[in-house]
């Protein structure tokens, strides 16, 4: 078993390295700022003093490596610097919003993952049936819809005049869990619809890909029931691709969350990022991008490790 741990350790190290390079990249982005960024940012308020202040804020007056090390040590201690637009520490802006975004993403994932796995398996089992064709066509259709379209359709349908759900997912104070679930139902449903189709299609494809393999034919020739053939014989071998699909879609939730938060005016990181990009508030954009990227890297890393563990060829060597 030791080789598998060393393999996992290697993956972890590689993940950390990737994170490090990503942080370099995100930080280095400031380097690419055009020289007159401060002036452009300030517009008519640009005086030599304010320009110098902004440049100091971004540390544009120090050599790059010093600034990177300072920034990174700050980040590791939870200090992302101050927002350019309202001078508040970035960490203050982020902390509650991060929780909200995570809540929304997990909410959607909790519905989407089991649902799509089940639908994918059923579609593979009843392939070429009406159910399969219908779910395939609707999956294709919903993949093709922009998130905001899905969101607005849901609002139109479920929240419009006398609708059942609120179209705005903002909440103040400390709402109860049930209240949160109710208020964020539409955004979560939007995200679910967006990722379920893709996950289901890929699950179906991963299983069907295997159905032509000789060992599946063998299982059928041993007189096994179709459901058993899929669940016992195809599924364990399709785990690696399925895990990757799930990771890919959870990662996609991260992106999808941005648009959905804007539609539903949800106080999350995505909303914050969009506002900051519009205001060209560099420290905030950097911080949020780093968090999203870190989540993304971690997800892929987890998927990678799980996929490795699901493969007997790698776990039990000759």
């Amino acid at each position, binding site marked *: 078993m030791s080789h598998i741990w060393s393999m996992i350790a290697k993956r972890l190290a590689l993940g950390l390295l990737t994170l490090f390079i990503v942080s370099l990249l995100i930080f280095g982005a400031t380097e690419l700022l055009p020289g007159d960024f401060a002036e452009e940012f300030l517009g008519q308020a640009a005086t030599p003093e304010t320009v110098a202040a902004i440049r100091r804020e971004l540390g544009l007056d120090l050599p790059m490596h010093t600034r990177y090390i300072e920034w990174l040590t700050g980040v590791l201690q939870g200090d992302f610097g101050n927002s350019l637009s309202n001078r508040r520490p970035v960490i203050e802006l982020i902390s509650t919003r991060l929780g909200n975004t995570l809540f929304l993403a997990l909410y959607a994932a909790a519905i989407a993952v089991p649902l799509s796995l089940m639908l994918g398996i059923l579609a593979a089992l009843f392939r070429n049936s009406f159910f399969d064709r219908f779910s395939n066509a609707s999956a294709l259709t919903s993949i093709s819809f922009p998130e905001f379209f899905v969101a607005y359709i849901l609002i139109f349908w479920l929240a419009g005049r006398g609708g059942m759900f609120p179209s705005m997912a903002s909440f103040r104070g400390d709402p109860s869990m049930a209240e949160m679930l109710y208020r964020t139902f539409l955004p979560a449903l939007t995200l679910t619809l967006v990722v379920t189709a893709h996950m289901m299609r890929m699950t179906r494809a991963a299983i069907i890909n295997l159905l032509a393999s000789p*060992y599946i*034919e063998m299982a059928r020739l*041993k007189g*096994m029931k179709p459901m058993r053939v899929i669940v016992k014989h195809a599924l364990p071998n399709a785990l690696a691709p399925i895990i990757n699909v799930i990771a890919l879609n959870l990662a996609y939730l991260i992106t999808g969350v941005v648009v959905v938060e804007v539609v539903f005016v949800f106080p999350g990181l995505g909303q914050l990022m969009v506002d900051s990009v519009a205001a060209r508030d560099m420290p905030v954009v950097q911080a949020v991008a780093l968090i999203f990227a870190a989540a993304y890297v971690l997800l892929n890393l987890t998927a990678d490790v799980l996929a490795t563990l699901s493969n007997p060829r790698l776990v039990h060597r000759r």
Partner: protein
Amino acid sequence: MTEQNNGKPVLLTMKGLRIEGRSDETWSEIVHGIDLTLHKGEVLGLIGESGAGKSTVGLAAMGFTRDGCRISGGEIVFDGIDLMKASEATKRNLRGKRIAYVAQSAAASFNPAHKLMDQYCEAPVQHGVMGRNEAEGDAVDLYRRMQLPDPDNIGFRYPHQVSGGQLQRAMTAMAMACRPDLIIFDEPTTALDVTTQIEVLAAIRNIVEQFDTAAIYITHDLAVVAQMADRIKVLLKGDEVEEADTRSMLSTPKEDYTKSLWAVRSHARAEQPPVAADKTPVVSVKNITAGYGAVDVLMNVNFDIHERRTVAVVGESGSGKSTTARVITGLLPPRQGEILFDGKVLPPDYRRRTRDQLRQAQMIYQMADTALNPKLRIRELIGRPAQMYLGLQGKALTDRIRNLLDLIELEPDDYIDRLPAELSGGQKQRIGIARALAAEPKFIICDEVTSALDQLVAEGILKLLDKLQTEFDLAYMFITHDLATVKAIADEVVVMKEGRVIEQGPKSEMFRPPHDPYTELLLSSVPEMDPDWLTDLLRERESG
């Protein structure tokens, strides 16, 4: 039809079986009305070339068709149960329990995600034949009877941890799990080396006899079926050619097609005079040691190939024969040693060789499917070397292409603008030969060029190669695992095992004792047409 029941009751009958296959949205018949009767405890050999429909018929005996196939007519009755009318559940209950299946590639047919034992126990437990504990004990017993090493523990390994020959035996044991009345063996030894094949054949025959199981044994190899079957049925393109009991089928085949199958191994290259001792060989392999990464795959390999001579390099998988070819062509620069061409040292890496050096040594591949670019027309496939090396253009080039097509016996007008997909397997291999000839080389490496082909087609290719050799004074290096091919075409033989040359010399000496023990094992393991060959051989090996 031959009725030879020895008083045993009939187990399986097929009458007028018709099966259709779908291609491009239309159905076309691939099996045109086959009749078949099998008695309890009897072994029937189904024999034919690829496309004969033997696997399709074998699977139909289980009431099963592959995706894209359907049974369109006829009758299949297994022990009184009409499989054409039976429900899916009834058929499922027969499969694995009363009719079992052993596939060609055990490595692909065992589920990689489960241990051998779990796969063994699945059928008996799911069919309610016995409990899990009982099944496990039974498995160990069968593993022992199949002479698997460490029968107590081998079941707790995953398929990838077990070798090919052992897997094939484990699969036969698995088929036996419910003590079925009938087992379908679908080319169970085709993917194995000859020395491994013997053990598997012996184990299968032994166990089928012990449990008095009826079997349908599907294969393209006549010598193999002669050892295994009581009766033989010959199929050709979905039709029955003839059927008889094994001995009379071997001694007095009635139909021309069967006779031609029997006669196939007749081609033999005329004996060549010995090469003058002072003659410079075309290719000289000197002290080659080579490998991938840190592992040496070849150790101290030496041999010469002369003009108008064929050197056959023989060995089982992993013997290093293909690696030798890679070293000669410069794809794998050796760690030690050198390759001489006409007495001059060749640069070890093909990228350092001159265009003329590249032209002089050509290669023909085993799988014509992957050796020809599927998107290029024949004109370009065989025209390119002529254009590149000899600078032919326009009409001169077209004339040369037509001339090459004539040489490989394909009608130029008909074939020059075809794509590889529009050719049969043998024709593709001929294009591979034409491409090599187009460079006007002195030396050609033939890497298992006939092993993917049916016997009759392979015979044609061998004859063609022989003819071309004489016509263009070619030197051939012939890589093969098949000793029949060696007998047919070689002047000299090099036997390789685990990266070393075990023995080498003229063909006439190689097929006469005394031998190195490995050569002996290799030679004696090649099945012969004699139905008693396996029995005799096993007795001999036991006593010796």
